[in-house]
């Protein structure tokens, strides 16, 4: 009787404890963690297994458990750079930025071409409010990667501009390099367009739009964007021409695309712009 009550109380306690837990590893992850825990109990301090289990914890957002595993792996083998890097990532995600930076510096001192460590270092520097120091990190990542991600080019450009608002030309040069290496990626092309507009380079901005449009079946929005660039530059007459070209492109769309809400909204927007910007008040000469 007494045993049975204890059993049920213990079962209830276990169930309640489970209900209150944060999301835990599931399915195969959970099984892997259980298996690794058993192996670690048999070989205490095995860095390989600690690293492996820490990664599982980290992927499930259990940063505290991940930290303990990476720390244990590192204290058993101070040359275990993967553990140091992962500890740095945990520290970053726990907002312990100075600790993260120190660990990343140690990793990069031992492995200067470790791209993941360098990407993380740039990230931590930005989060630490030190954008100027992040820029050379991005340069290095781009130089060392066989195929850098579009994100790296974007981040470098945005960091440059955050650091120095007049650096748009240098930022643009970097984005241009990205387009050369990765192809006509719209995330980079659109950013380049933004930079041209920021630099007041109207014709260059228009050329960017033309380059983006070249590969597209639907041009109406890009023609409208050409109009906006021209309007902002005071070239009202040219802007009107572009808005009219955009309307014509809308008219040429197949009916199923022409009568959508988005197309109708664009048409209204264009008609409104044409109405409030009558022809003839161009402030600077047409090209």
């Amino acid at each position, binding site marked *: 009787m007494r045993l049975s009550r204890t059993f049920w109380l213990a079962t209830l306690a276990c169930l309640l404890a489970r209900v209150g837990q*944060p*999301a835990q590893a*599931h*399915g*195969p*992850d959970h*099984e*892997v963690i259980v298996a690794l825990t058993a192996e670690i109990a048999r070989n205490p301090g095995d860095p390989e297994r600690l690293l492996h289990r820490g*990664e599982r914890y*980290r*992927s*499930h*957002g*259990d940063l505290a458990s991940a930290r303990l595993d990476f720390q244990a792996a590192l204290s058993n083998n101070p040359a275990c750079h993967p553990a140091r890097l992962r500890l740095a990532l945990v520290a970053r*995600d726990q907002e312990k930025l100075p600790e993260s930076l120190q660990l990343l510096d140690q990793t990069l001192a031992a492995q200067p071409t470790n*791209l*993941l460590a360098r*990407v993380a270092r740039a990230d931590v520097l930005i989060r630490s409010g030190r954008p100027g120091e992040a820029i050379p990190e991005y340069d290095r990542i781009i130089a060392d*990667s*066989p*195929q850098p*991600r*579009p*994100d790296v*080019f*974007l981040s470098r450009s945005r960091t440059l501009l955050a650091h120095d608002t007049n650096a748009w030309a240098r930022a643009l040069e970097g984005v241009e390099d*990205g387009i050369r290496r*990765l*192809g*006509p*990626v*719209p*995330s*980079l092309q*659109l*950013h380049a367009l933004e930079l041209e507009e920021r630099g007041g380079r109207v014709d260059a901005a228009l050329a960017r739009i033309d380059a*983006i449009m070249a*590969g*597209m*079946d*639907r041009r109406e*929005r890009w023609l409208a964007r050409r109009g906006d660039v021209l309007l902002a530059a005071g070239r009202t007459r040219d802007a009107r021409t572009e808005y009219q070209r955009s309307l014509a492109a809308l008219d040429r769309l*197949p009916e*199923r*695309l*022409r*009568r*959508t*809400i*988005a*197309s109708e909204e664009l048409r209204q927007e264009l008609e409104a712009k044409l109405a409030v910007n009558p022809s003839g008040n161009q402030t600077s000469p047409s090209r």
Partner: protein
Amino acid sequence: MSNRWTFWLAALWLGVMASPGLHAQKLVRGPYLQLPTQNSMVVRWRTDKEAKGYVRWGLSPESATNRVSHSGSLTEHVVQIRGLQPNTRYYYAVGTETNRWITPVEPDYSFITPPKPGTSQPVRVWAIGDPGTASTNQANVRNTFYELHRQRPADLWLMLGDNAYSSGTDAQYQRAVFSVYSSILRQSPVWPTLGNHDAYHADSPTLSGPYYDIFTLPTLGQCGGLASGTEAYYSFDFANIHFVCLDSEDTERNRDGAMAAWLRADLAANTRDWVIAFFHHPPYTKGSHDSDKLSDSAGRMAEMRENFLPILESGGVDLVLTGHSHSYERSYLLNGHYGLSSTLQPSMILNAGSGRLDLDGSFRKDGGNAPHQGAIYICAGSSGQASGGRLNHPANWLSLNKLGSLVLDIDGLRADIRFMGDHGQLRDYFTIEKR
């Protein structure tokens, strides 16, 4: 006596050396098909020893005499066949040296090129989520689809992530993908997305690891859509469908990141009738993962929901396919539900019906990829195991702790979607029709 033995041994040795089958390279993996366009196809395979790889191909097994190779001597063979006609069946064999073919030329080794983009014709798509358990469950789910595939083959198939448990190593891919799906791999191109388990040994920032080594994915919009500049996320067209693959695991998921900017532009440029997006982390799940818990999967489900669903819905997305939870969860026809499950409003449910023609009718949408006309979100992560959960997300019309995979049949402006079980069961079905 001793001379006779020497003679026979020498003869045996010469026989062994002369036999093409015995010292030729052995096929270890594949062939499998990648990067299909209306005029080209990439054929990949692996051999046990290094060699120069050849593909021979033609319009019939007898006329498969065109020949193309890669340069250099490799074990990982990647050969692109060019100069093909759209929507045409080609027969092929792979080999490593002239006249030494390691696959037969027979109907089983053939593929059909995609039609001209925009063409309206019947299309079949198979989608599997979290399949890679290398278990009987996985084989049963596959066998159920193979029955349907025999009657009408899939034009392409999608892997929704966690393709090879438990860490996405090359050996695990061999066991859970190449050994399990060999017959469909050589007939229909596969399009994968990265899951968390694949990412234990693969990195999107450096595009490295088995996942990126195994798959050849478009970075320049070669298969339709706009250039993404990375294999981590991409788009492609097939007939009148635009497919978008996002990396919910290992690429920045912020609103002003490169993936979001690319997606906006890609969808704005789309002129196909259907938009189908796929990625690993489900926006609405109460299965083995909980999309309301911000600590679950380090917040990836919430980030995809908050940052990418608005872009997808603005781009007129029709279907969003995910995995991660090992269950089947199918939403209502939804629009604008970007918060926790507690923030679901009746106005966000554009159609609370079943979508079944024989019950209360199909889901109806306007054509032309008009924004915010409603999308169906499906978590189909039970193609290798079913792991339960509370399965009570209010955005979902149906939640099942059952094994299975998705079969999409799209013809013109009608899409019929079925969730098939592990022993031939039809577990769910619905239809979307566009006007």
